[in-house]
């Protein structure tokens, strides 16, 4: 908000999402604090609050609101948070084929995918879900350690593994919701 006339200003050009959500630029995030910040920002910036203001301000409030949502979702989930931290350090997950890939790991991903793809496997879905969750927890611990050690290359490797499991999680969710 402009200090002089109190009108809403547009969001900055390349906002730092950690800064926006008043979090330290770290993989460790206080989720409760993040949620509180999210709610208080939305209370102040939500378009509904700008119904009586100028169209420009309403537009800005929409932009802010979208940004706040994006920041919240990015920082809330370990995978997106980790990837964002890498991005801030100029590192991205390889778009191309990973030639370093752990073939045992890929085989494991293949096997879980195959199990998920089997028809009439409703009774096994819970088992698969438990497995996926356990793996994700383990990987989250590993990536936390990597970031604490400032080992960004290791973090990148672990985040890549988490990406495969995130896809599995999505597929599982799709299977559970009746079509």
């Amino acid at each position, binding site marked *: 908000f402009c200090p002089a006339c109190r009108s809403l200003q547009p969001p900055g050009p390349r906002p730092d999402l950690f800064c926006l959500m008043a979090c330290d630029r770290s993989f460790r995030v206080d989720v409760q604090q993040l949620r509180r910040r999210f709610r208080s920002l939305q209370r102040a910036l939500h378009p509904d609050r700008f119904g009586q203001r100028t169209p420009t301000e309403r537009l800005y409030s929409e932009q802010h609101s979208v940004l706040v949502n994006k920041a919240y979702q990015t920082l809330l989930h370990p995978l997106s948070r980790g990837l964002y931290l890498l991005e801030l350090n100029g590192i991205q997950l390889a778009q191309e084929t*990973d030639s370093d890939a752990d073939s045992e790991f890929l085989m494991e*991903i*293949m096997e879980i995918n195959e199990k998920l793809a089997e028809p009439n496997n409703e009774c096994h879905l819970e088992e698969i879900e438990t497995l996926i969750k356990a793996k994700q927890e383990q990987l989250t611990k590993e990536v936390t350690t990597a970031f604490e050690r400032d080992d960004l290359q290791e973090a990148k490797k672990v985040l890549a593994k988490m990406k495969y499991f*995130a*896809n599995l999680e999505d597929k599982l969710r799709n299977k559970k919701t009746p079509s």
Partner: protein
Amino acid sequence: GCPAQVVDHYENPRNVGSLDRNAKNVGTGLVGAPACGDVMKLQVEVDENGKIVDARFKTFGCGSAIASSSLATEWVKGKTVDEALKIKNTDIAKELCLPPVKLHCSMLAEDAIKAALADYKLKQDPKKEDSEKK
């Protein structure tokens, strides 16, 4: 035309399945793309004359990745190992009219072919294994 062919490979992928990875004349390539989390397995069966007589794939990922690997298995059949090594991702992408954003899917397929053939070669000459492995 191009669009029809592309849809066909998505809806009716050819050669989905597995070969016996323990057979000496079967090469297995397993590759992944970290950014999108796609995983692709491609297998080839080679006869005593070095010709690829069968190929299968299993891909978990986007439609373009599935179509690329389906096409790859079709293309390697009937080729010798050396001929199959010449298959380029750009040929696959062109055949399927892949948009630039999906080019990496065709690269994944090319890498899967190479990995399967490398695995096959390794199995034929175990002495090489120690010196060539990282």
